[in-house]
């Protein structure tokens, strides 16, 4: 049996149980969301004892060096003892400064941090509410802007999104942690064709990346595809159309499964994106964000179509997952 020490108390772990599951099961509050090693909401620090390498996969070197690890990916060998602390010192106090509806189910949330957050447009952060509830969201803003902007999809029964949509008011205090993710514009090849495709609020990071690329003087074609089930699921449509008229190299392609018309194409996002890819996509770079299944499928298709893996930046959005054993929706 392995055990974990947190705030002066020892907690036994069941065989094969993660540090996150073990602590939650025994009533310790640990921020968490995706529980799949991606969102980094459950970041903790090892104070004493060693952490398996698998629990540090994907963390920045600077975090690894300070013994941070992902509690949801941390399984200890039998007999191991680990003393842990929360990641409070990594969080920056922030307050909500604006809430604006972008569509019936997407909310723009603007946050102002107490100290500047260093990030790249397209990365994501974790928002932690006062009671420890945590969710990860992509940044739609640019680092030069004074506020962080998130696009939050309002999910029926979603603890964070419904709170933001119904109860939260400007002035409300939260904390932010991060940033994480490597879905961002890399300057250096201004003529490279860029392919950006996102579904739903997968538009948020792309919205930041497109502006980042344009401001960096990108001259190559930028193909931005935004997919939704029906036209009501698209948002920022007018603004993006306007940008496309201002920037001749920006091509905006709103797509829907049903109800298309005008410049809104009808079909699957994947088919429309692939139709745009040339036979030899040498030098092309892709940014894929949103629904995990769609992102992973499109990444594979683009690789097969000739994209190099290093030129595909994918950010698959994972839903928040309640602890093992609890009924979905109870969290």
């Amino acid at each position, binding site marked *: 049996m392995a055990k974990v020490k947190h705030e002066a108390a020892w907690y036994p772990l069941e065989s094969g149980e993660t540090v996150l599951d073990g602590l939650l099961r025994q009533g310790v509050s640990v921020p968490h969301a995706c529980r799949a090693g991606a969102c980094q909401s459950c970041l903790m620090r090892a104070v004493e004892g060693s952490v398996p390498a698998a629990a540090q996969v994907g963390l920045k070197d600077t975090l690894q060096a300070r013994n941070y690890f992902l509690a949801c990916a941390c399984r200890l060998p039998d007999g191991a003892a680990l003393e842990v602390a929360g990641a409070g010192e990594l969080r920056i106090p922030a307050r909500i400064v604006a809430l604006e509806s972008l569509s019936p189910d997407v909310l723009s949330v603007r946050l102002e941090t107490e100290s500047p957050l260093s990030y790249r447009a397209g990365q994501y952060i974790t928002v932690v509410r006062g009671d420890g509830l945590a969710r990860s969201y992509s940044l739609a803003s640019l680092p030069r802007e004074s506020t962080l902007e998130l696009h939050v999809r309002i999910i029926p029964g979603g603890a964070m999104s419904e709170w933001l949509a119904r109860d939260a008011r400007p002035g409300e205090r939260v904390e932010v942690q991060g940033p994480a993710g490597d879905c961002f514009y890399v300057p250096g090849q201004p003529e490279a064709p860029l392919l950006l495709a996102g579904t739903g609020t997968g538009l948020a990071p792309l919205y930041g990346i497109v502006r980042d690329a344009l401001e960096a003087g990108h001259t190559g074609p930028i193909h931005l595809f935004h997919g939704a089930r029906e036209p009501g699921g698209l948002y920022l449509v007018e603004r993006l159309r306007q940008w496309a008229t201002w920037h001749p190299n920006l091509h905006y392609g709103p797509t829907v499964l049903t109800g298309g018309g005008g410049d809104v194409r009808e079909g699957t996002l994947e088919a429309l994106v692939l139709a745009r890819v040339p036979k030899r996509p040498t030098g092309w770079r892709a940014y894929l964000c949103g629904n995990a299944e769609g992102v*992973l499928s499109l*990444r*594979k298709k683009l*690789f*097969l179509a*000739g994209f*190099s*893996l290093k030129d595909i930046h994918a950010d*698959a959005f994972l839903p928040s997952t309640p602890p093992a054993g609890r009924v979905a929706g109870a969290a």
Partner: protein
Amino acid sequence: MSSVYEQIGGEPAMAAAVELFYRKVLGDERISHFFETVDMERQAAKQKAFLTMVCGGPANYSGKDMREGHRPLVQRGLNETHFNAVAGHLKETLEELGVSAELVGKVMAVAEGARADVLNR
């Protein structure tokens, strides 16, 4: 005598070969289900290690690793046909990269030597 690995250009050649090879196996419906994964980067790294090994480069693979690594796949039905398909893609990859017939022959002999371990026989 230097290894095939060194003769065809070492690590940079493996980096070039791995994407060609991975694209071929992932695009082949007979075997793609053995290579489907969420973590494509990691899968590519594994394949690079495999290519390095069959070319006689620095590799940490042992016959035992081969055997254990492929056991779950054998349980999922990995057989001769699949092995032959992968070997065919390996050969094509090397040929596309302009590796001489003599060196391709050497690599294919090493790959053939792994057949029993891969298929857990």
